């Protein structure tokens, strides 16, 4: 009897001990508390990256990893963790990097945001940087390439190429990042081919080559002849090649993945941001800002056009690019109608509304779950 009682008491103690361990600890560092950030000497900087995919995925993660390589070339020590899902595994990965001595952390997928935030609150002296989200802390900034500008250029390429006037768009998640990309792409298409439509299929995954390819085949079977993607692997391009149609890549140039289909790709040049950002850590000018920079800053761009592009595409793309850089061409300006033809804005959209877009513009075929 006494033994059983002892066991119960021990079990109870254990439960309380566990509860005590998981209770939130870092209350005072929340919100406007003073930042504990100090500049770090270059030789002491250790940068840790958390990637959602494989560093050789031929897409999104590879583009980020180019940034890591650029940092290493500049003499910074870097660690990385790949294939980290948007789950509690991310928190584990960030903590492991911190334990390994990293004092600058970059997490690179939107779903990493909350886990990054959790750890950032506990370590106010470490620099956290999160890509494609929206949260900031005194020691956490967020950054995103204004890839809608490159997507607009890709839209021009697709609009010139399509003969069926049906363009397919394999998109990952029903979130503003994808939706504003689809809308910007559609604006680009319409600027050269007002007849063409853009049809969207959601895959609900950033990186799953099998699903990405199946979605592209579905669009091709529906009669689309150019495929655009917001996915991390070149699988949609392989599908287009298999069906004798054309495709636009994303993130990283992939002319060799599907050489008979590849037209071009909107690209991220994350290396530009990463090197600048870590240099700011060294000279003490790092800020917990929200960065959203585009063509003008060189954060994004369009890959070289392949020989498969329609004649005259290069000139149109170049003109639009210059227009965006010098400010004479502004995306989402003038009257903007939604998918059903209702006027949503009469004279352009503010930047913040573009970033948070959750509806399709006119010319897009597809649905967004409420």
């Amino acid at each position, binding site marked *: 009897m006494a033994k059983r009682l002892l066991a119960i008491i021990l079990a109870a103690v254990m439960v309380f001990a566990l509860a005590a361990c998981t209770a939130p600890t870092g209350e005072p560092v929340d919100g406007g508390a003073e930042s504990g950030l100090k500049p770090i000497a270059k030789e002491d900087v250790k940068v840790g990256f958390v990637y959602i995919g494989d560093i050789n995925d031929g897409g999104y993660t590879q583009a980020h990893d180019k940034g890591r390589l650029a940092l290493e070339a500049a003499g910074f020590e870097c660690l990385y963790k790949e294939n980290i899902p948007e789950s509690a595994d991310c928190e584990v990965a960030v903590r492991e990097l911190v334990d390994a001595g990293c004092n600058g952390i970059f997490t690179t997928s939107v779903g990493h945001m909350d886990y990054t935030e959790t750890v950032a609150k506990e370590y106010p002296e470490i620099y956290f940087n999160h890509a494609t989200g929206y949260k900031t802390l005194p020691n956490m900034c967020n950054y995103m390439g204004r890839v809608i500008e490159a997507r607009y250029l890709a839209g021009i390429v697709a609009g010139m190429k399509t003969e069926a006037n049906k363009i397919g768009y394999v998109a990952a998640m029903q979130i503003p990042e994808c939706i504003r990309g689809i809308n910007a792409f559609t604006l680009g298409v319409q600027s050269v081919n007002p007849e063409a439509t853009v049809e969207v299929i959601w895959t609900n995954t950033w990186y799953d080559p099998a699903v990405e390819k199946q979605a592209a085949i*579905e669009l091709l079977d529906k009669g689309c002849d150019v495929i655009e993607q917001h996915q991390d692997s070149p699988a949609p391009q392989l599908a287009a090649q298999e069906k004798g149609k054309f495709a636009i890549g994303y993130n990283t140039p992939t002319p060799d993945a599907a050489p008979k289909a590849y037209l071009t790709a909107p690209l991220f040049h994350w290396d530009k941001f990463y090197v600048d950002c870590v240099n700011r850590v060294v000279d003490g000018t790092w800020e917990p800002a929200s960065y959203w920079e585009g063509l003008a800053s060189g954060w994004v761009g369009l890959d070289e056009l392949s020989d498969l592009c329609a004649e005259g595409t290069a000139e149109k793309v170049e003109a639009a690019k210059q227009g965006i850089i010098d400010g004479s061409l502004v995306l989402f300006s003038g009257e903007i109608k939604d998918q059903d033809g209702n006027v949503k804005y009469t004279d352009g959209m503010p930047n913040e509304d573009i970033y948070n877009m959750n509806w399709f513009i006119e010319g897009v075929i597809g649905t967004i779950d409420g």
Partner: protein
Amino acid sequence: MSAFLISVALFLQVTASLGTHVLLGTLGGILTERVGNTCLGIEGMMLLGASTGFLVAYNTGNALLAVLAAGAAGAAGALIYAIITVSLRGNQVVTGLALTTFGSGAAGLIGMSISGKSLPESINNVLGIHTIPVLSDIPVIGKMLFEQSPFVLGAIFCAIIIYIYLTKTNTGLNARVVGESPAAADASGINVTLHKYIHTILGGFLCGVGGGYYSMVYVGRWQIDLTAGAGWISVALIIFAMWNPLRAILGAYLFGAVRGLTFKLQGGLVLFGHTITFSAQLLDMAPYIVTVLVLLFITMRNKREYQAPAALGSPYFRENR
């Protein structure tokens, strides 16, 4: 041909291409279970085949060699399983589960150098989609069977061969006796251990080839855990097929069809003027839910001739009689 017939033909084409690796896995499982070995390692053997096949294809550019390597990798997994369950008489369920976990990890290791790579043209030329003139113009089923990778017809062919082997040949009948009553088989002079080894390894070979099809043809890329549960669907389909290779074709294509439908139902279905929308999560679950429902239905019917091999799952000790 009307637009509707064309879209049906295209849908069936997708169905067959999504069902083929599952079909090969199911056939491998049927061979293994027919000699009385519970087969839960299909996912692991598929992954081994998927990464090894891709590795060989990438490095040699030889399609035949790649397919053989995929099969050999699956067979190697099955050999480990056979040694543990047949010779050492280990628990088949635990060993099968361990094989899946092992296969997933080992495949990831094998595939490290090929992640993100594309296959050479010579592989796609042989294993990719071939359009057979005339036959592929048959309405509805033309594209499904004759505008496909050679794997698709190959898998159907395998199913027919295995059916004939198991029901019409002496060796096949011997194998079934081993699965029903190893003691009786032993008494009548059938080498139980040899039959178990050969069929388990052949089964593993087919699972490996199925994985190879998925990585080299269907997806065209390698990634960790590429098959995403297809091996488990195969395990369920063995029961769906009642250990009958011909019914396995039906089961695998049903799975392919439901998976193909998920993208078609996105954005809702218009019925009598009302749009019925489906949540994305529900659509992703659909193939698996259908598999469970079908299993439920099948097992409820519970006919005498549709039963698992009687000795399935129990190791054979000659001295135990």
